[in-house]
């Protein structure tokens, strides 16, 4: 069908433009100079020292250097728009945990198996590796970090509520979500205004992140209307109804303010939040935070991948670069700064990771997250997960900010999902 579009264009714009001499040279190359590999990622997803080395010269390819762009916002939109724009597409792009949504366009990327990825498979967490491979067994995306989850909490606030602040004690006190909510209420009583989540969707997302299944089965059946989703949905609403959410919606001006002003006193979150949350938004709380095993069990949210686009000037060099960047040794370095959790288990025993983190009062936080990462069962992400997740999360916001009835919200969300999936031809 793309032929007919081209034909249409050829008859229309092409002809008109050519006849007036306006047609551009139609540059179809990738972004950056011929001695550069261009790469896009979002802020805080790489270790700056390693990138600095590659910006001088790509290891093993002296004539090439990396040209890195850190994108502050709307990352995915920018990548997809540049792919649709067909020019100035970067050689290498970082891809988030919604990697499966790119699978229908896997032909825009190089198959990393063809570039020698198979040899590296044994270095990585199996569940993580699988996420980057398409159903027809092409490797579209190479693992970067993972996002094991754990419970972050403020020791100063917890002790005001008379809670033993030792991580093991907190874990024992709140092994599941029920006990965790009870704990949250106790803290709130002692320190009014305390919240255990920034907003309703974080609870939902982190509960979903603990589940072995998500919205679709591998053979394409929709299961987003089943009990495991409803349970996470109801749990999120319960936390809000208990008054334990700070009601700071994602993307709002308040999202960081609740960390800065100390409203968020405990948060079941992924490892990368350590940097993006307290370290960035509340540097003054240094030493006050601890992490412990999350209520409800091990989980994973986020964690990213790298893809090499078909526009790439030198796929071999690009692959050499990404496999160097994501080696166990370098992933260990990325954990130290900016707290990216390695997808290579060999990193977990790296002596640098075992160092105490002063921000967490000298705690060795790697132990907590390593346990979560290795215990996490993995879950299937379908290409439709984003369009399924969007209405659900939108309806949750309606419950939190507008007091919409939970059943109504659930039904509306499911109805919307059904419409979207029907349009997408998924069901």
């Amino acid at each position: 069908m793309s032929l007919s579009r081209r034909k249409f264009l050829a008859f229309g714009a092409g002809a008109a433009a050519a006849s007036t001499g306006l047609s551009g040279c139609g540059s179809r190359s990738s972004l950056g100079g011929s001695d550069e590999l261009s790469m896009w990622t979002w802020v805080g997803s790489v270790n700056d020292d390693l990138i600095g080395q590659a910006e001088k010269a790509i290891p093993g390819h002296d004539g090439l250097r990396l040209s890195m762009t850190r994108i502050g916002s709307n990352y995915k939109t920018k990548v997809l728009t540049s792919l649709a724009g067909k020019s100035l597409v970067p050689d290498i792009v970082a891809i988030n945990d919604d990697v499966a949504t790119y699978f229908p366009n896997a032909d825009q990327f190089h198959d990393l198996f063809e570039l020698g990825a198979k040899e590296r498979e044994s270095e990585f967490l199996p569940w993580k590796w699988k996420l980057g491979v398409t159903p027809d067994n092409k490797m579209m995306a190479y693992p970067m970090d993972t996002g094991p989850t754990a419970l972050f909490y403020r020791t100063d606030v917890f002790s005001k509520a008379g809670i033993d602040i030792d991580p093991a004690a907190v874990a024992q006190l709140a092994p599941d979500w029920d006990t965790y909510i009870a704990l949250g209420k106790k803290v709130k009583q002692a320190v009014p205004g305390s919240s255990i989540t920034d907003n309703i969707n974080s609870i939902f997302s982190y509960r979903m992140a603990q589940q072995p299944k998500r919205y679709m089965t591998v053979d394409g059946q929709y299961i987003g209307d089943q009990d495991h989703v409803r349970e996470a949905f109801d749990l999120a609403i319960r936390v809000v109804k208990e008054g334990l959410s700070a009601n700071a919606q994602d993307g709002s001006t308040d999202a960081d303010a609740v960390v800065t002003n100390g409203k968020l006193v405990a948060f079941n979150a992924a490892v990368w939040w350590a940097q993006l949350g307290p370290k960035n938004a509340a540097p003054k709380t240094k030493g006050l935070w601890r992490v412990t095993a999350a209520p409800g069990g091990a989980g994973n949210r986020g964690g990213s991948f790298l893809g090499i686009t078909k526009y790439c000037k030198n796929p071999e060099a690009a692959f050499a670069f990404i496999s160097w960047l994501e080696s166990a040794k370098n992933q260990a370095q990325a954990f130290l700064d900016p707290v990216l959790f390695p997808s290579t288990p060999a990193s977990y025993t790296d002596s640098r990771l075992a160092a105490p983190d002063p921000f967490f009062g000298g705690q060795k936080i790697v132990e907590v997250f390593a346990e979560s990462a290795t215990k996490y069962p993995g879950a299937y992400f379908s290409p439709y997960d984003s369009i399924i997740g969007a209405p659900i999360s939108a309806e949750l916001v309606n419950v939190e900010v507008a007091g919409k009835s939970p059943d109504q919200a659930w039904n509306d969300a499911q109805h919307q999902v059904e419409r979207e999936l029907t349009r997408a031809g998924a069901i």
Partner: protein
Amino acid sequence: MTVTKALPATVRSTDTTAKPPGKYRQAFPQYAAVAPFFILFAIFGAFPVLFSIWISFHDWDGIGSMTWVGLQQYSYLLGDPKFWQAIGNTLIIWVLSTVPMLLLALVIANALHNATRFRSFYRIAYFIPNVTSVVAVTLVFGSIFSNNFGLLNAFLQSVGLGKVEWLTQPWGIKIAIATIVTWRWVGYNAIIYLAGLQAISADVYEAAKVDGASSRQVFWRITVPMLRPVILFTAVTSTIGGLQIFTESRVLFGDTNNIGGPGNAGMTIVSYLYQSAFINNQFGYGAAIGWALFILIVLFSIINWRLIGGRDNERIARRAARRAERNIAAQKAAQQEDAEQTTKEAADVH
């Protein structure tokens, strides 16, 4: 008040009664002069419009291959609650911004008209918001309206009123967006009204004064009717601008699943178009929404066109002037009656 008439008299290069052959060739320089616009329009205006029909018949993410789906995008659109919500939001925000904006502009223009001193200072001060970028303005207002640290809430709290969650409540969001639009455009419209006021002949006012009309009467019975064409002009521009609101909503809320804020309360038609096409990569659907927006604008334009079309315009102005005279006459008569009444009543009391 000059209005668009039929094209005015021009230098005629040829006699209209006996056009010599080769008149097209003779007019070649003129064609060449107007050609750039039409060529650019053909490529970047007309062709894309046709192309968008083609795209809207497809399911396409802009990257992979296109799948023909016929009218499916349109049938989805008609049954899409988010689309109707976007239209509703847009119209509400449009009303919330246009009505106070035009009223305030009228008040300011009137005050400016009466003020003789500092007039150019005022004009510049009022116009500055309009040349400031929407992005920067929205960032500032976003912090003023912020739920947790906003200046507005701090003020409300300090005077003993509770906080309002401006940026999470459906009405709060619409009010915030409408406020930004109003703030940016009040001065602009006031300047235009001022020009309209200055075009009203002083004689009319003199006559009214002689007839003893009060200043309020003058404002409502002379000024406003005489300004009607200008008011309609500003209403048209505000309508076209209002139907295309996008930046305010997008900068306030960014790209989240709830585009335009919680409950999509600030999601405008263009926000929804942008989200569909460039965030969800549904180019086909984005093209279909574009057509819906087009139909909406044409609808409003036809209404406006009829209202301000050249002849209508003059008729309205004339009618307004006549009505003003009539009103003043009636008013005077009524006043006289009143006066007589009062004297009579006074006499009765005695």
